[in-house]
């Protein structure tokens, strides 16, 4: 192990002790890259120096957390995933009088609006509540505002169409100058809250949990913890949707899920 790698471990361990944010079970390669990036943009020389700053200065720590926990995504990222949700999951969700969805690691909200649009088109949104959580408060704030750069709309529209969208995508937002604002009606049943998959517990029972491209940042133990948490948070026969390169491989609950769509990583809690 290189000395930098050791120092990063020590830094994460100190952060855990001082602030209670636990990044020690994050996959090291990505978090190292983000810490190095933070260092280079702040003109800090070494990891030791960074450690001194963030352990003394809570504001600097907050900035570091925002940087190392930020994730990027897009509306209807992986259209085939949403198409499969529509085809394989929605009908079964419709049998519930009241639908609770948890989007874990919702980042800046693109996934939330994707799911809300899908539920609206399937006429389920008015009896659904979407719980949107992320460890990153800054991302949550952006998610809540629902304001996005207009530059991305062309590719989002393309995604929406390939995801089996039933209307014109532009019906869902208002464009002004360089930004778009998603329609209020999409946001009425969304609860935003901070939640940390590394330390926090289950907080409700859901029919659908979506957590995409979050587990890839965790080591195998933490992946297992998160999937256990999802298992505990799902009703019997509830659904779990993961990112296209994620799986239940490292989970001891693997056998308690059934494949709904193997390729799209959609599972159902079966036991």
């Amino acid at each position: 192990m290189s000395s930098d790698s050791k120092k990063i471990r020590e830094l994460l361990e100190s952060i855990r002790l001082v602030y209670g944010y636990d990044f020690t079970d994050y996959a090291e390669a990505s978090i190292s890259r983000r810490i190095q990036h933070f260092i280079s943009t702040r003109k800090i020389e070494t990891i030791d120096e960074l450690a001194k700053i963030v352990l003394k200065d809570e504001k600097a720590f907050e900035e570091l957390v925002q940087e190392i926990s930020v994730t990027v995504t897009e509306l209807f990222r992986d259209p085939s995933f949403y198409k499969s949700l529509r085809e394989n999951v929605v009908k079964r969700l419709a049998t519930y009088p009241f639908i609770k969805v948890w989007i874990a690691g919702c980042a800046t909200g693109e996934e939330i609006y994707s799911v809300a649009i899908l539920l609206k088109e399937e006429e389920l949104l008015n009896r659904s509540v979407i719980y949107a959580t992320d460890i990153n408060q800054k991302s949550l704030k952006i998610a809540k505002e629902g304001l996005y750069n207009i530059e991305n709309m062309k590719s989002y529209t393309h995604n929406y169409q390939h995801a089996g969208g039933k209307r014109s995508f532009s019906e869902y937002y208002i464009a002004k100058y360089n930004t778009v604002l998603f329609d209020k009606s999409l946001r009425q049943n969304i609860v935003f809250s901070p939640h940390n998959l590394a330390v926090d517990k289950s907080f409700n029972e859901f029919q659908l949990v979506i957590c995409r491209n979050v587990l890839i940042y965790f080591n195998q133990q933490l992946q297992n913890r998160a999937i256990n948490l999802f298992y505990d948070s799902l009703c019997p026969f509830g659904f779990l949707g993961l990112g296209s390169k994620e799986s239940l491989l490292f989970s001891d609950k693997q056998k308690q899920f059934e494949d709904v769509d193997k390729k799209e990583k959609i599972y159902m809690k079966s036991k």
Partner: protein
Amino acid sequence: MTKNAKYEAIVVGTSAGGLNALFVLLETLPANFPLPIIIVQHRSKDKNDLLEEVLQNKCKVKIKQADEKEKIEKGVVYIAPPDYHVLIENDLTLSLSADEYVQFSRPSIDVLFESAAGVYKDKLIGIILTGANSDGASGIRLIKANDGLTIAQKPEEAFSPVMPSAAIKTNAVTHIWPLSKIRDFLLTLNN
């Protein structure tokens, strides 16, 4: 023991024109090639492209798409999946990331090369082939700084010279070779 026996992994980065170049490099490798090879070929987000299958059809060495937290094995060629960066963990497993684009690319060659350099140090070979942007140049610099071996395809014969030229401009490239020579060099590792 030859001096080549010290190497433990090879990383390759390529973009425009990469498929044909990869055929040349990989076609002649034996199934029991003694090193793992991890490749970033810039590709579209389309998950239905058949890059791995197309390569496997002509190659004896095993070719597969990189999977999350997969153990890196000798004699296997790992290709970065569409829309994800690939990084190397200290325990010699592969990690994926959906972080933002680097050099307009995801997967990005720089992301792979930089993390591989930190893990394999002087036991790494980094190769830049044909391509139309400068992704990989910063990675090549870091491989060299860690005493790894760096090779760029001779720009004059590359389908697109931009990528090897950008790598060469860093002054961190050990060998500038035509593809056939890079291929022959890889074969010498197999003794």
